[in-house]
């Protein structure tokens, strides 16, 4: 697989899900999901509560072990690897360098009692950065990029508003220039105007950095604004998939039609 690393690297999938299934006891939370994600592509996973979105995201990011199927990822060296075959150290390294994970609840993705600067700098320190001044400068420039006043760099996120926390979480993840970011309801629980600003920021960052992203949301407006492609889940299955505009403007499945009409009233 390694031969044609550089040439046409963007033609090869970054991540491949192959017949993923996950059951909790007798409940199948995710059933037979397959797709490929390409570099720079943003995929939205939509569906009602309990449809299996978070379960799928955790399978894709190797936080859950599937009952069947596998996830492979093209590493920075161009070699595509089965995530289940990675050692724990490799997996954790991947997670804090080439991947990002933005939680709905910022308390899960941030160290709430540690300054914003250290929150952003943590990944750099984890990969061996050892110069305080450079870590701080890099953290400052990331705070600027996510529109957080650099004067707040020494404040802990527990003193931040909800929207600022989410933006800080994004900066903390992007500081190592990952190629893939997982997001689980990144705008959930925020006021509408705060959501709009966050979405705008995310859209700009994703396109500037050429990031690939998998965004779980039950808000179709989020999918519409951020994603190139949509997967619609119901009862653990993917029931419809396609280009975002196509799926949202012209849904095939009755369930998707219901979803679209209830959340995006014409």
């Amino acid at each position, binding site marked *: 697989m390694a031969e044609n690393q550089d040439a046409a690297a963007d033609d090869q999938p970054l991540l491949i899900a192959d017949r993923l299934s996950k059951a909790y006891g007798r409940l199948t939370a995710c059933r037979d999901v397959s797709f490929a994600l390409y570099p720079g592509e943003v995929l939205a996973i939509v569906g009602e509560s309990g449809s299996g979105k978070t379960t799928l995201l955790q399978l894709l990011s190797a936080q859950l072990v599937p009952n069947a199927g596998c996830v492979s990822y093209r590493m920075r060296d161009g070699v595509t690897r089965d995530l289940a075959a990675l050692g*724990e*150290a490799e997996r*954790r390294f991947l997670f804090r360098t080439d991947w990002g994970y933005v939680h709905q609840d910022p308390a899960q993705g941030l*160290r709430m009692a*540690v*300054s914003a*600067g*250290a929150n952003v*700098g*943590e*990944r750099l*320190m*984890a*990969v061996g950065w*050892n*110069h*305080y*001044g450079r*870590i*701080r400068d890099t953290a400052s420039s990331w705070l600027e990029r996510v529109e957080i006043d650099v004067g707040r*760099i*020494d404040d802990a996120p527990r003193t931040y508003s909800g929207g600022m926390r989410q933006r800080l979480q994004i900066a903390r993840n992007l500081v190592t220039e990952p190629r893939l970011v997982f997001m689980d309801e990144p705008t959930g629980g925020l006021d509408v105007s705060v959501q709009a600003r966050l979405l705008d920021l995310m859209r700009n960052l994703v396109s500037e950095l050429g990031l690939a992203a998998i965004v779980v949301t039950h808000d179709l407006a989020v999918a519409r604004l951020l994603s190139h492609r949509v997967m619609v889940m119901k009862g653990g299955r993917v029931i419809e998939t396609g280009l975002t505009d196509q799926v949202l403007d012209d849904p095939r499945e009755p369930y998707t039609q219901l979803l679209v009409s209830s959340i995006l009233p014409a």
Partner: protein
Amino acid sequence: MNAPAYNFAYLDEQTKRMIRRAILKAIAIPGYQVPFASREMPMPYGWGTGGVQVTAAILGPNDVLKVIDQGSDDTTNAISIRKFFAKTAGVATTTATADATVIQTRHRIPEAPLHGGQVLVYQVPIPEPLRFLEPRETETRRMHALGEYGLIHVKLYEDIARFGHIATSYAYPVKVNARYVMDPSPTPKFDNPKMDNCPALQLFGAGREKRIYAIPPHTSVLSLDFEDHPFTRYRFDAPCALCGAEDSYLDEIVTDDRGGRMFVCSDTDYCETRQSSGHRGSENAAPHKERAHG
């Protein structure tokens, strides 16, 4: 003759063997925290029961024991532990660092250089250096196993962001043998360099937390820092008021109720040894030796 109601050095032989196994494992993996089945000792945890158990497990009848607390042989804590072993093991005790074969300590490493054949036993309250930022035990264990120590630098970063310099001055984190990050217990960072390449064996016992760890003789011990904020030793910039030492760690002592204070060696044995060989500080200068400033 009434037979003592307790075994040599208080603990029964089976318990001592269990602790020795943990110590051997700790020596084999420098800086790694080995769990052990900590026993109740006839003293409260705050008195260093971890250190006491380690000492009890390694003590032999020919050992000479020194016990210090904050550098002093004469605090209640040091005296009781010394008496405890004098009574339960019948070992000789000393206050002279050079004469001791086993030194149990809280807070300090003696100023006199240690030598091969000596064992320094530390009483440790909190053995886990990652605890303050990562409360989950499963996670800190994984971090040690994988050598993921970025969090230590997060702590040092926070210090600099808040105080302009690395303000951690006790329990300053070190990397042992280029592998495990270790908390040297509440010793002042002034003592950190003494741990590096030390000819004596260093053993650490945490009673409440049930952990033993070790630095074998001549092992590298590196104080963690940033390139642009390197580790520095710290001592008050003054000579000892009693012995004039310029290189020892000092305690600040309040001398009266009008705010008078002086700095004296925290290592009482070191200070007294210097005084008895004629060194004098400002507070007890012999009249004929009054410092003749130019």
